[in-house]
């Protein structure tokens, strides 16, 4: 039962990744990443209860729902409204290509990662593979998108991969470390958004094309 739920969550995560890869609108992407954040926050609940204190798990879940599912999407939405970029994005690679890439990566990570000789450690190999797929997809989004907001979302996907992995494979961190990690992420996003605001003020757009002058 638990296991099936875990697989379901992993599948949903992968689907949301594919969705992010295929969507062209910022608003949709933000919704997608919020959905992924909520999904992730459920993961701690599936941890074997003997290894961690239940209170810790609840605190962690609540905090991550708050940060990943509410605060960060909200903040991103605000900045998107602020800089008024709902237009079509022009990625370096087309959406359909991206989706195909995402599928390939997901399949590949199930194939390769599942074969690694330490998979027995994770609560579910499915989960771990999804994490690595997210990692690569996150980087892919960063690399192929022109819009800075999309890059931030890519970064969030990438960070989520770490979170999934943390939950699924190694759950022995003390609470304060986990919270520190979440807060760090929050602070990172905040400062990125501040940067986006600055960039927008300065260039009147948030395309990465104007950020290619330092190149030698």
């Amino acid at each position, binding site marked *: 039962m638990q296991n099936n739920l875990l697989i379901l969550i992993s599948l949903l995560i992968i689907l949301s990744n594919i969705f992010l890869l295929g969507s062209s609108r910022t608003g949709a992407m933000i919704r997608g990443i919020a959905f992924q954040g909520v999904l992730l926050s459920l993961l701690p609940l599936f941890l074997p209860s003997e290894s961690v204190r239940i209170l810790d798990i609840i605190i962690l879940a609540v905090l991550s729902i708050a940060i990943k599912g509410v605060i960060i999407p909200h903040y991103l939405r605000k900045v998107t409204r602020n800089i008024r970029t709902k237009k079509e994005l022009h990625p370096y690679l087309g959406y359909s290509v991206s989706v195909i890439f995402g599928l390939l990566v997901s399949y590949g990570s199930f194939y390769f990662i599942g074969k690694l000789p330490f998979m027995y450690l994770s609560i579910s190999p499915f989960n771990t593979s999804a994490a690595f797929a997210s990692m690569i997809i996150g980087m*892919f989004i*960063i*690399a192929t998108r022109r819009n800075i907001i999309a890059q931030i979302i890519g970064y969030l996907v990438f960070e989520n991969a770490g979170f999934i992995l943390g939950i699924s494979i190694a759950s022995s961190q003390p609470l304060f470390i986990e919270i520190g990690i979440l807060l760090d992420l929050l602070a990172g996003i905040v400062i990125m958004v501040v940067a986006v605001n600055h960039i927008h003020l300065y260039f009147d757009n948030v395309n*990465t094309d104007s*950020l*290619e*002058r330092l*190149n030698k």
Partner: protein
Amino acid sequence: MLYPIFIYLASLVLTGALSAAFYRNHRFSKYFAAVSNAILSLIMLVFLINRFDSFHDEVFKTIWSLPMAEFHVGVDFLSLFFMIPLLILAAACSIYGSEYFKEHRSGRFHWFFYGLLVAGMMMVLISRNVVLFMISWEIMSFSSFLLVISEAQKESVRRAGWIYFVTAHVGTAFLLTAFFLLGSGAGSFNFELFGLVPFEVAKSNLIFIFALAGFGFKAGFIPFHVWLPLAHPAAPSHVSGLMSGIMIKMGIYGILRVLMFFTSYQTWWGILLVIIGASSGIIGILFAVGQHDIKRLLAYCSVENIGIILIGLGLGVLGRAWDYPLVSMFGFTGALLHIVNHALFKGLLFLGAGSVIRQTGTGEIDSLGGLFKKMPMTGSLFLAGSIAVSGLPFFNGFISELFIYAGAITGAVASAGSIMPMVCALAVMALALTGGLAAAGFTKLFGIVFQGNSRKTDISSAVDVPSMMKLGMIFLSVFLVFIGMMSFLVIPFIEKPMLLLSGEAASPFIYQLSDIGEKVSILLVALLILMIIIFTVGKIFRRKTVTDVETWGCGYTKPASSMQYTSSSYAEPITSQFGLVLAARKELQSDNEIFPVKPWSFRSSVEDWFLSRVFIWFVKLIDRILSLLRWFQCGRAGVYVLYIGCIIIILFIWKFVL
């Protein structure tokens, strides 16, 4: 012997530091540094010569808190021998240098680095541990680099300093390789352990090649000479004297030191050395003949003389490899003596060139002339140096070349087989050709600069140099004549270092050396007496009147100083005949009117294609290879992230899939 050397080193550095501290009183600071430098060197020299006969190898060891390092110094006859020219030149050049800077003051640390350079060379000579050796070696390069860029506000000087230091650094890389190879068998970095277990042939060949290249960058034989003709003109003259005189010999010292680690020599080492020496000698002097700048000419001449030394070394190695102790003895003796001799006369010539440049403001040969009358002392000393460098009798250059000749002749006459006679004949031919061309080059230099009338520069107000500078030059020229005339008194100093190199097999024949020396001396003294007699007789019976007139212009009524032969025209036959090697460029400026009104001018210049084609080409090649990767930093943050992903995947595949 070692403790006095330590004291000498310490006081050199100390006086340098003090002179930097007293820089405010510039006059005092420079005299203090220069004079104390000279006195210290002289005291050391006298002490050394005094102790030479009763000397035994000395070693001093103590722990040194650096990984792999041990403070291991020692003196043997080879080091001792190299110290003699070092100390003589250090003294002469510092005395001279005290007056050299005329208008602008020398830098605050000039004398400090001068002392450091001398100390560095001394340290090179006594180091018996790789780490210590490399540090001393680098101190030497570093301080000489800083001295070369004394006048770095000039573009040419910066370029020269740059190329010099780069070549020095590349040389260090080769040296490190050679020493690592040496040390890999011994398991230690102390020289005494190198070669205790004989090296395999392949390894010893590798060591030899790397050492030759590494030390070659300092010694400056072809093709490693590129820095010499740039750095010597750039440096202040007393520094170029010291560098060309003795610093490049440290490269030779290194080669000798490495050779001493081997119990048996390979034949092809000797052949290679002779071939490099011969080509270095011939090409070096050809380049020299084509130059228009006094110090550049002298620098190329150093390349030539290093070539001659290498011929001697090559013969020595061949003699040992093929078991002809006589060849080996003559070869090494000649090489060692030529090291000293070249140090002396090249030092003198650089100092003389410096005097000319200082008093006239130019080193351009073609614009000078007639300086002998204005600067008789510099002129005479320069003449002495010129004769010596051409290897002609009465001066020291002859003696050493004679010994190298003797080695080659013995090899050519006495040996069986066909390779050895050919190599020896090559040596003889190269020596003869370089000798003749050197005479051509230095008659040109002396004749154009000191004789005739001035061509462009106004020398009416030129006077001879201050007495301190004269003193430095006279000091050196005394040795020139002394070794040239009384060589048998000098030979005992060479015998022991020579035996270290050529092995004990040569010791039964050692009497031949001073025998030759004595015979030459007797003949030369007799000849000198004859000359004096004839000259005096001519003076005494001087009933005839001598009328002063203008030079006969062959009927031309208005001779002008611009009609004189220039260095371009003097060297033209040679540069055009050897165009294959020299790639001489001729510029003829003329107007093709029927009645020419504009003045025509002709100028030939010799470009060093080793620098322009080989060295710069190499630097550009590296740059071109590197530039293949310049797209990497494309400026797009997303791509940068992609790189990170790629390296992760690459590492994953490398470690888990392959």
